């Protein structure tokens, strides 16, 4: 076991993938000499050379589009999109090419492309640097979408994503890059929990609280705070947003009868909408209350000084817990 930050765990996972398979190439803006603006690729160009860790021209469609060509040639490109808000110029290549080529080619052409996206807010950044675009990709057939929340997962999941023959949107909670944790660099990938399987972070019996990425530590705090208040919360870290591991959520909700979902992305059509709808379909008779969503507002990401009024935090999630429990809450007395 080594203690690593989440960023360093990713770095270690990338290094390992580069070493294990010479078809793995890293591509992105400023990932080589600089080591990435978050230093996630630090040192890798020096170690593997400029043909394995490739500083690209400044064009996101170009990066993803050439990665498609590299995949045709048998490579496994791992792309860094510098910030969440810069993925949109590549949207067409991702949605119309990366996601569809395996289908279009009857399985002949594989797209083992990993697209790393530092995502989410809470770092006081400028516009376009704090977005949570994951729902766009979860709605896109042909893509897998995952989000890591801690160093141990980061180290394993990035390697699983790279090893996957399907394209993976890999979301990294940038505000947790510096969080430290134990990482087992010796364990076998084959023994690891598949990236499609969710993790139960804390067990509980009153409310199931589902989240992913940067809000997982917050959700754990929620469970702690609620416990003091006599409420037992089961926190589930989704890890995979598409497909969702419904077996785990379902089993939990059947016990708790109450579901809260929280994410930074806006509510309208967010990942929480799908989970609320799907769990309602699957567990209707078990639900004691409607699933509650605690999300960012449906607004453009606000200026830094206002982001705490946008992002779900401990109090807002606790308020959601109160809502699902029918306890006094911010909407008490309000007609739904």
């Amino acid at each position, binding site marked *: 076991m080594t203690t690593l930050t989440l960023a360093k765990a990713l770095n270690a996972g990338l290094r390992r993938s580069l070493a294990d398979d010479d078809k793995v*190439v890293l591509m992105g803006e400023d990932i080589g000499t600089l080591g990435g603006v978050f230093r996630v690729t630090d040192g890798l160009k020096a170690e593997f050379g400029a*043909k394995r860790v490739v500083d*690209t*021209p400044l*064009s996101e*469609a*170009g990066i*993803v*589009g*050439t*990665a*498609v*060509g*590299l*995949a*045709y*040639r*048998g*490579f496994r*490109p791992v792309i860094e999109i510098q910030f969440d808000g810069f993925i949109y*110029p590549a949207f*067409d*290549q991702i949605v*119309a*090419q990366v996601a569809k080529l*395996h*289908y*279009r*080619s*009857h*399985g*002949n*052409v*594989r797209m*083992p492309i990993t697209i790393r996206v530092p995502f989410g807010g809470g770092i006081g950044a400028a516009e376009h640097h704090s977005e949570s675009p994951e729902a766009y990709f979860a709605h896109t*057939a*042909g893509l*897998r979408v995952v989000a890591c929340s801690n160093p141990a997962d980061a180290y394993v999941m990035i390697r699983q994503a790279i090893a*996957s*023959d*399907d394209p993976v949107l890999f979301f990294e909670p940038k505000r947790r890059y510096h969080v430290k944790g134990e990482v087992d660099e010796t364990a076998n990938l084959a023994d690891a929990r598949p990236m*499609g399987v969710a993790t139960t972070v804390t067990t509980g019996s009153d409310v199931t609280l589902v989240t992913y990425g940067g809000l997982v530590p917050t959700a754990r705090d929620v469970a702690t705070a609620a416990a003091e208040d006599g409420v037992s919360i089961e926190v589930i870290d989704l890890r995979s947003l*598409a*497909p*969702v*591991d*419904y077996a785990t959520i379902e089993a939990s909700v059947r016990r708790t009868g109450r579901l809260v979902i929280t994410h930074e992305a806006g509510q309208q059509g967010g990942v929480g909408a799908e989970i609320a709808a799907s769990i309602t379909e699957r567990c209707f008779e078990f639900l004691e209350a409607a699933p509650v969503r605690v999300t960012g507002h449906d607004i453009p990401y606000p200026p830094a000084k206002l982001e705490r009024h946008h992002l779900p935090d401990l109090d807002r999630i606790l308020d959601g817990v109160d809502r699902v429990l029918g306890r006094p809450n911010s909407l008490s007395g309000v007609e739904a």
Partner: protein
Amino acid sequence: MTPSDRDATGLLTRPDDFVQLVTPTGERHANAEFDPWIADIDLGALGRLYRDMAIVRRIDTEATALQRQGELGLWPPLAGQEAAQIGSGRALRDDDFIFSSYREHALAWVRGVAPADLLSVWRGSTASGWNPFEHGMAVPQIIIGAQTLHATGYAMGAAWEGSDAAAIAYFGDGATSEGDVNEALVFAASFDAPVVFFCQNNQWAISEPVGLQSKQHLARRADGFGMPGVRVDGNDVLAVLAATRIALDRARRGEGPTFIEAVTYRMGPHTTADDPKRYRTDEELAEWRERDPLARVLALLEASGVDVAGLEREVGADADRAAAELRAALTTIADPEALTVFDHVYAEPNSHVERQRDHYTRYLAMFDETGAAASETAEGGAR
């Protein structure tokens, strides 16, 4: 379009405006730079290029007819662009990889794609007709320009592997306005990628004349991105062959990409769904008919003493056979099975798709039991 419009569109066809080795009337111009690259093309080889062009023209005509008869959902005819496609296609080595648009049926022919595979996608029976790796050719790309980046990335990868194989990207005049194509030029130049950007300037992007996309010759685009650009008569199979060979040689020697503008003309509609009378004149079409890519080769062969009537007969028979094969192939294209809609969404097992497949299987089974068919509903959505 008025004549002055035409000038503005850069629809210039003076031989001094591009490289032309064979004039529309079949005269052979000497060209010190290009001639060495086609020194091997004797009269026999020229006859074979003619044969290629005649056969793909015939296949194209047949496919257009099949669409009119309701056998295909759509067909984008290549008529007029035979020299551009055959000239470049025959310059390629087997291990070069083709990333085409949707109109490059002649490339599929060059690469030995079976008739049924060529038609199946336009029939709506399949998402793609062939295995790209069996033919060194990606399946048709409909998103304008997207494939130029794929070709560039493929070429980067080939070079990184130490191979001297090249990639070639086919795209149209309209495509040059898309960001993707320009980003491909950036990447290709930056990484000295062994890729050939082959632009068929067929004067039109559906109803839009090339002058709306650019007031400059498209080949001039190349220089600003740091690569050579060459403008050839795209209806001159020898000029195209030579230009593509030069570009491929450059690529193989590690000197990077080349941009070729092949000046040609789409003689038919954009697709069988299009009515070109709405936007272009009969006179324009007539002018271009005089620059037909096949006619000039025949004229050159005749002037060189070849028994052209005999060649035409022979090739005509081959073309008849190809057309018959195409028609026959239709019957071998099976209608896809309902549940194949779920195949290949992912390469690895996926719980969500499996669940939907399972649900839909149960849904279909209901009809089996009751004897009703999903396709026979009031609405059906089918076509």
